[in-house]
C-alpha cells in the first residue's frame, strides 16, 4: 500500500542546546524581517543626528568626550534602550502566545525552556545589533567631525566602554521585557510603565533607592569626564548630583546587578512560559 508520505528516516530529540540554536536561528530571521525594525533603526539614528548637530553648531564647546557620555546617559539609556527592548524583546515572546502559534513549538519534542531561550537570545541579538549599528554610526560621525580626537586612545576607549554599557543595558531590558511577554497579557503597557514610570521616577529619588533601577546602574557604568563646573555640562552634572544625592557605586556592583537582572528575568520568563496553557482558542 502506498503511504501518504515516505518515512523521513530516524528521528531523535535534539539536545537542549541544539533546540535552542534552531529556535534562535529561525526567530532571528523572523524578527529581522519585521517592518518595525526599520522604524527602530531610524529612531536609533537620533544620537547620530544630535552628534551631527553638535559638530555643525558647537564643535568647540562640546567635544566628543563630553557629548558621548551625555548621549549614552540621556539618550541611549533613558530612551533608546528601553524602546528597542520593548519593540523586539516583549513581542518575541508575547506574540506567539497571543497569536496561538506557540502550539507548533509545543507539539515538538523540545523542552519549553529551549523555546524561550531560543527566542529571547534571538531578540537580544537583534536588539544588540541595532544598538551596535547606531553606536558604530556615532563613531563614524566622530571620526569625520573630530578626526584628531576620535583616533585618540582615550576617546576610543570611552566609545568602546559606552558601547559595552549600552549593549549590557540592551540585554538586561530585553530579558526583562521578554519575561513581561511570557507572563503578562499586555506586556507593552507594563514595559512602558516600567521604563518611563518606575525607572524615570525612582532614579530621581535621593539616596540608595535609585539602585533599584537599571538606569542607575547603566548610568553608573558610563565613564563620566571629570566634572568641571566652569563648563555647562559639568555644572549641570554637579547640580544634579547635589540635588539627587547620586552616589556612584563600584562598577562591578552595577555589572553584577545588570547580569543578575538579566538572569533572573530569563529564569522567570522560562517558568512563566512553562506554566502557560494554550487555553485561548478553545
Amino acid at each position, binding site marked *: 500500500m502506498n503511504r501518504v508520505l515516505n518515512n523521513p528516516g530516524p528521528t531523535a530529540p*535534539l539536545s537542549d542546546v541544539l533546540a535552542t540554536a534552531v529556535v534562535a536561528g*529561525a526567530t532571528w530571521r523572523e524578527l529581522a524581517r519585521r517592518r518595525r525594525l526599520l522604524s527602530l533603526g531610524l529612531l536609533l539614528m537620533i544620537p547620530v543626528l544630535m552628534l551631527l548637530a553638535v559638530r555643525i553648531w558647537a564643535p568647540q564647546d562640546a567635544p566628543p568626550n563630553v557629548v558621548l557620555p551625555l548621549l549614552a546617559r540621556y539618550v541611549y539609556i533613558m530612551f533608546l534602550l528601553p524602546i528597542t527592548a520593548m519593540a523586539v524583546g516583549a513581542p518575541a515572546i508575547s506574540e*506567539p502566545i497571543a497569536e496561538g502559534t506557540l502550539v507548533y513549538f509545543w507539539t*515538538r*519534542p523540545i523542552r519549553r525552556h529551549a523555546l524561550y531561550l531560543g527566542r529571547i537570545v534571538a531578540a537580544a541579538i537583534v536588539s544588540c545589533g541595532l544598538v551596535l549599528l547606531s553606536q558604530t554610526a556615532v563613531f563614524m560621525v566622530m571620526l569625520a567631525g573630530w578626526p584628531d580626537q576620535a583616533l585618540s586612545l582615550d576617546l576610543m576607549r570611552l566609545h568602546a566602554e559606552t558601547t559595552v554599557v549600552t549593549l549590557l543595558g540592551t540585554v538586561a531590558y530585553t530579558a526583562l521585557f521578554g519575561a513581561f511577554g511570557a507572563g503578562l497579557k499586555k506586556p507593552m503597557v507594563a514595559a512602558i510603565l516600567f521604563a518611563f514610570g518606575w525607572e524615570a521616577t525612582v532614579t530621581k529619588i535621593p539616596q540608595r533607592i535609585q539602585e533599584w533601577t537599571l538606569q542607575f546602574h547603566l548610568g553608573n557604568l558610563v565613564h563620566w569626564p571629570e566634572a568641571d563646573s566652569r563648563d555647562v555640562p559639568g555644572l549641570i552634572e554637579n547640580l544634579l548630583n547635589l540635588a539627587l544625592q547620586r552616589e556612584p557605586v563600584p562598577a562591578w556592583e552595577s555589572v553584577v546587578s545588570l547580569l543578575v537582572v538579566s538572569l533572573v528575568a530569563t529564569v522567570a520568563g522560562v517558568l512563566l512560559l512553562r506554566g502557560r*496553557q*494554550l487555553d485561548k482558542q*478553545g
Partner: protein
Amino acid sequence: MIGTAPARLEALEVGKWFGEVVAVGSCSLEVGGGVVGLLGQNGAGKTTLFKLLAGLITPSRGEVRLDGQPLRDHVALYRRVGFCPESDALPGWFTGREFLSMLIRLAGVERARVKPRVDELLERFELTDAANRRLGGYSKGMRQKLKLAQALAHDPDVLFMDEPLNGMDPVSRHQAIGAIRQLGEEGRTVLVSSHILPEVEEMTRRIILIHRSKVLAEGDVTEIRDLIPEYPTVVSLRCPQPRELASFLVRQNNVMGVECDDGKVVVRTEHALAFYRDLPQWLLDSGQAVEEINTLDDDLESVFAYLTDE
C-alpha cells in the same frame, strides 16, 4: 515511525474547567489505530478536549496517556504526535519552506534529511509554488494545507486534527479526506474533529459525539446518520462567479433554494448527505471553482436534540 502495534491513546476521566466554566466535563475514551471522528457543534468543547488529549493544557482532573505514559510534559513522546490546530494563525514572517524546515528539524529529523522532507511535503500538499512566500500572504486553503503538512512532517503515529477541512476548496477537501482515511489505514491513531457529519462520515465510521462539554455517545456513524437526512441544511460556497454557479445549482435535485450574497452562493438543501456527495460532480459539470465551503446551520443540532431528548 509507525510501530507494529498502533499507538493507544487513553483519556481517564479527563475534565477541564476555567473558574466556574466547565470546558470539558468528565471524559473517558480509548482509541488505538484508525481514524476516529470527534463530532460536536461549535463551542461544544472539541478544541479544549483536543488540547487536553494532546497535552497542551493541564486537565483539572484525570489524565491522558499515550501507550501507558502521561503525555503532558513528556517531551520524548511528542516525537510520535502530530497536531493540526483549528486556528488559522501561522507565524506570518516565515516562508512556507522555512516554517516546515524549522519544525521538521525540531522534531528531531536528521539535518541532511530536512530539505528532501520539506520538498516532499510541499509537493504532496501542492504548495511548491508558494514555498518561498511569506505565510502572511497565504490564503485560508493554503494555510490549512500547511497546517496538515506540518502535522505529518515527522511521520507521527498519533495525529490530532482539529477541523482540518475548514476553508478548503472541494478538490483539496476530497484529497485531504482521502489522505486522512489512508493515514488510518496505515495504522496511525488519527483523531479528527468536525461539526459536519458528512465530512466525518467520508473519513471513518467510528465517531465520538461531544455535546455541551460532555461525551454524549460513541459508536458507528450510520446510527447517527439515519437521524439526519430529514433535516435541512444551509451551505455557503465562496466562488469567483457566484451568479453563474447559483443558476447552475438551482436546477439540481435536492437543492431547495439558492441565493447570492457578497461573493457567496448560499444553498438550502433538504438532503445534506446527498448534497455533499453530489457537489464535486456538480462543480465539475458547471466548470465553476469554489474557494471555500461552510455550513451555515448545524445539521448536528437536531441529532443532539434527539439524543438528549430536548
